[in-house]
């Protein structure tokens, strides 16, 4: 009996309270790190938190968490996925499952949703230097079906070595059949010698994600540098999702169509800006201006602000229908807001995520990260800004946002953002914290 008491006391003393459950954090926004399964030494250099998604893996109605650790080194392989199955008290102290992979598995992640209707969500994980049966080092994307222990559905691969297939992922229903489709970026693919390393984007249609019937959108002479950044959502109001992707200095869009996708090899909509990094992040928002079209946010994380490079800028652009060419640098009805980052090389708008109602006015808000933003007390830790719907209007400034500062050195806070909706929390990846060991932080949005 005495032994039991000693053990209980020792456990209570040795295990920090915050490592047991992801807590509700209250108004102070004090961030709490997500504990890890492997020791810090095992995951040293793994960059856990490079990617992350929130989804119901096992169909129990709770939101679970998948974290990518693309540089985890284990038994000669590189890359891992960490699964945290939640219960009513939140996320567990340690991963429920750890899946080791190779080829930098976990660089990218995307949730596909409840594809087969049993409540267990599908998701896809990218390994930018993964190898497949008939091609090596091309990059691969593995589609998993959720469960207490997720299992592999299929593996998709790039065309040629070092295409970095799987660098970026997105999902949405582009052909209107009710199933989520998977979109994969391969930014170093070469469609032809003249378009060496200019990139390609591939669309795989649910529910089967058949590699043989995919659609390829290759770089062209006018739209190169594609495959680094993707987003999906219905911006033209036809009820079918549209595909938006970064091209050099532009964001180009292809409207989804129930007949076939894309209806034309020529983009339906083009947004352009002279700002460096325009399109680094893209997100389809809600209808901000009441015109019945969902609007979009585009980040230019390397934009120069007040002569300071890499400071970043956020554009809020109007959705609409028909063929459109929009210059985001010029004042027009298409430009709903343009928000400058802090002039400190913070790379504002590195990632963008629509979140829930932040200010209780019944309208959604927006989380925007600056992965090099100044923290407290360290500079360049990373920073996350929370904008309410009412602060995303013409003339808005970054000062109208609520800011969350990183607290650890060189952590790249906000590399990924994910919403834990039922708990009213925001998850933010910090993959370079503690010498690239990485960590995930949670913040209370309520």
């Amino acid at each position: 009996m005495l032994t039991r008491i000693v053990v209980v006391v020792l456990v209570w003393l040795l295990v920090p309270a915050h490592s047991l459950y992801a807590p509700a954090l209250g108004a102070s926004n004090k961030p709490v790190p997500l504990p890890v399964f492997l020791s810090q030494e095992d995951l040293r250099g793994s960059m856990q938190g490079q990617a992350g998604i929130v989804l119901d893996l096992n169909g129990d109605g709770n939101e679970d968490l998948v974290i990518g650790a693309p540089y985890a080194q284990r038994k000669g392989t590189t890359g891992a996925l960490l699964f945290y199955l939640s219960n009513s008290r939140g996320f567990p102290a340690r991963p429920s499952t750890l899946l080791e992979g190779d080829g930098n598995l976990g660089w990218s992640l995307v949730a596909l949703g409840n594809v087969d209707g049993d409540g267990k969500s599908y998701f896809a994980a990218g390994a930018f230097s993964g190898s497949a049966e008939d091609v090596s080092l091309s990059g691969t994307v593995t589609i998993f079906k959720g469960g207490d222990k997720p299992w592999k559905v299929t593996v998709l691969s790039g065309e040629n070595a070092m295409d970095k297939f799987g660098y970026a992922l997105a999902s949405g229903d582009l052909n209107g059949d009710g199933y989520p489709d998977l979109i994969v970026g391969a930014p170093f693919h070469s469609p032809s010698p003249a378009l060496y390393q200019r990139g390609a984007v591939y669309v795989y249609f649910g529910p089967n994600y058949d590699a043989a019937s995919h659609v390829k959108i290759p770089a062209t002479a006018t739209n190169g540098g594609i495959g680094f950044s993707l987003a999906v959502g219905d911006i033209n109001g036809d009820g079918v999702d549209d595909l938006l992707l970064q091209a050099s200095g532009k964001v180009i869009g292809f409207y989804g169509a129930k007949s076939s996708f894309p209806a034309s090899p020529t983009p339906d909509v083009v947004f352009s800006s002279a700002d460096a990094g325009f399109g680094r992040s893209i997100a389809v928002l809600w209808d901000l201006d009441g015109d019945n079209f969902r609007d979009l946010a585009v980040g230019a994380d390397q934009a120069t602000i007040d002569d300071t490079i890499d400071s970043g800028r956020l554009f809020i652009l109007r959705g609409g229908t028909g063929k459109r060419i929009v210059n985001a640098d010029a004042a027009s009805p298409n430009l709903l807001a343009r928000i400058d980052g802090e002039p400190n090389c913070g790379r504002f708008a590195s990632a963008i995520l629509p979140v829930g109602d932040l200010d209780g006015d019944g309208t959604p808000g927006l989380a925007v990260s600056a992965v090099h933003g100044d923290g407290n007390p360290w500079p360049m830790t990373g920073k996350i800004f929370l904008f309410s719907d009412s602060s995303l209007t013409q003339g808005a400034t970054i000062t109208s946002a609520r800011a969350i500062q990183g607290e650890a050195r060189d952590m790249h806070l906000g590399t990924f953002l994910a919403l834990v909706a039922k708990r009213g929390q925001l998850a933010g990846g910090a993959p370079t914290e503690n010498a690239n060991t990485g960590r995930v932080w949670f913040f209370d949005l309520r």
Partner: protein
Amino acid sequence: MEKFVTVCLVAFFVSGLAMVYNESNFSALGRMYQPPPEGHAVGKDNDPEHGMHHAGENCARCHCMGGRAEAYAWTMAGTLYADRSGRSILKGGEIILQDREGNVISMTSNEAGNFWTTAPIASNPYTVVSHGGPPEPLYVLDSQGNLLQPADPTDPRTWLYKAWVRKGFSVRPMLTIAPAAGATGMSMTCSMHHGAMGSRGALWVSPAPTLPSYPDSGLSYRKHIYPILRSKCSPCHIPGSTMTRQVTKADIDTPSTSFDFSNGLDLMTYEGSTVGSVVKDGVSSAVDTANPEQSLILQKTLPGKVHAGGAFWNNRAPDYIAIQQWVKEGALKN
């Protein structure tokens, strides 16, 4: 006659390898085959700071005069990887720079793959910059061509160097004479172009094979050979223009010392390529199925051979044996 030409060529290249390197031949062509300097203390120019952060990013954005970390202004820095794809970082690799005055700078990569130094890099008073347009001299000549005003020695664009990376017996030279701040005046370091996700691939060196294993027979171009070529032969042997950048007065004088560092060979395509007016031979022209060991892609990259891109393997290395076997099997595009 053929033998005579070969002997002359070998003599030329051997004399090139044995030549004295000084400021008179400080150009891309003059240093084309220069082996790395020897006899220095490895890592002698490492800066003592911590340096575990921002691996693969452009260090000089902050670590420069006027930058956010100007208290730690570096002359050169970057991140070293074990492979061109940036699959994993490399600890303990050596990065060697030599400037026109013969100064040797040696750094070693740390646990994050990072390296950095504050060692000065000699300025070239005859620096020119070129970045997609005609070269622009940073110096001023009088009407007789005499130097009236040298390039500003505090301008990092005038800090020119030749570089090598080394790990074990594996050594990879940088072909061009590079400016420490690029051509546009933006501060940059190796990671600007050679980050893990950079357009030219990661800065890398390793004697390790490209793939973990190869079959003894039935080699596939797509699965086994192309990964080797894209890992080890780019960014030199790629489609399109691959002329060295013009960085000194010598480069814009006649005869030009700028050269095509692909030597007309595109190893990213099997058949060869035509991009605009640039026509290049492909992989199929660099193999000899009758005498596989004599294939250009095997011969050029053995130790002791004349190859500006360095030596990649010996004839017992898995990559070498895989290519050799594939050539023996007909060098098919399979």
